[in-house]
C-alpha cells in the first residue's frame, strides 16, 4: 500500500522528536525533579503533538491528588484495617509475657 504524505510526516516527526516512552518518563520525572531546559523543551514539543501523552500528564496529576487523599485518610485511621481478634490476643500475650519476664 502506498504511504501518503501524512504517514511520511509522522515518520519524519517520530525520528526528530522524543517518543511517548521518553515523554511519559519526563512527565513522571518532573514530579520529583526540575527538568533542564533541553528536556523541558523536548517534552513541551511532544505534548503539543501527542494527545495521548497530554491525557497521560493530566492523569498523573490526578493520580498524585488521589494519593494525597489516600495518604490523609489512611493516616486518620479511615482505612478500616483492624487487628484481627486472634492477632490482638496473640500480640497481647507476647507483650505481657515479655513484660513479666523483665
Amino acid at each position, binding site marked *: 500500500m502506498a504511504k501518503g504524505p501524512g504517514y511520511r510526516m509522522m515518520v519524519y516527526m517520530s525520528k526528530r522528536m522524543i517518543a*511517548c516512552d521518553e515523554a511519559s518518563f519526563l512527565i513522571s520525572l518532573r514530579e520529583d525533579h526540575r527538568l533542564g531546559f533541553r528536556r523541558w523543551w523536548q517534552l513541551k514539543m511532544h505534548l503539543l503533538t501527542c494527545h495521548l501523552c497530554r491525557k497521560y500528564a493530566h492523569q498523573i496529576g490526578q493520580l498524585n491528588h488521589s494519593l494525597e487523599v489516600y495518604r490523609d485518610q489512611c493516616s486518620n485511621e479511615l482505612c478500616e484495617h483492624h*487487628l484481627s481478634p486472634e492477632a490482638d490476643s496473640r500480640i497481647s500475650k507476647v507483650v505481657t509475657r515479655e513484660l513479666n519476664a523483665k
Partner: protein
Amino acid sequence: MSNTKEHTVDPQHWVERHGDYLFNYAVVRVNDRGKAEDLVQETFLAGLKARDRFRGESTERTWLTSILKRKIIDTYRKKYTSKESSFGEHEQTVFDGDFYRSEEPFRGHWLEGMGPNSHSLLPEGELEQAELMKFIRLCIENLPPQLAASFVMKMIDEEDSDTICKELGITSSNLWVMLHRARLRMRDCLEKKWLN
C-alpha cells in the same frame, strides 16, 4: 519514670491503645495483613527493649510509629535485595515493552490499548471517592515489590529521594525509572480496574 518527661510509656496498654493504629499504618505500606501483624508485634517487642531510652519528647504513639517505620524500611530492603525482585539491567531503561511499541519507525509510541483512554481519573461523588481509595490500595498491591517499595516510600511516606536511594541502595536514576514504571502501572490499573 522521670517526672520531667512530657510523655511516658505504658506497655501494658500498648496493644489496646496503639495496636489498630500501628496495624493500619503497616498494612497500608506492606499490603500484607500477616506481615503487618508480625511487624506490629516486633515493634512492641523492640519498644519494650528500648523503653528505658524513651526520652518523653514525643508521644508514645509517635515513638512506636518511628520504630515501626524502621521495621517497614527493613522489610522493603529485604524485598528489594531478594533474588526474584532484583533490579535487573533491562529495568534501568525508560523503555517498557508492556506499554510501548518496539518496532520501527514508531518505537516508543504507546501500544494500542495501553495509552490513556479516559480524560479523568477523579471520582465525582463521595461514594466514588471511597471506591477509588479501595482501588488505589488494590493497584499498589499489584505493583511488583521493588516498584511498590520505592513508590510507597515516595508517595505515601513522603520520603525525600536521597533517603529512599540510601535505604534501598540505589542511584537516583534507578529511582526515577522505578517511580515512572510504578506510575505507568498505577494509572493503567486505575483506568482499567476502577473506571471500567
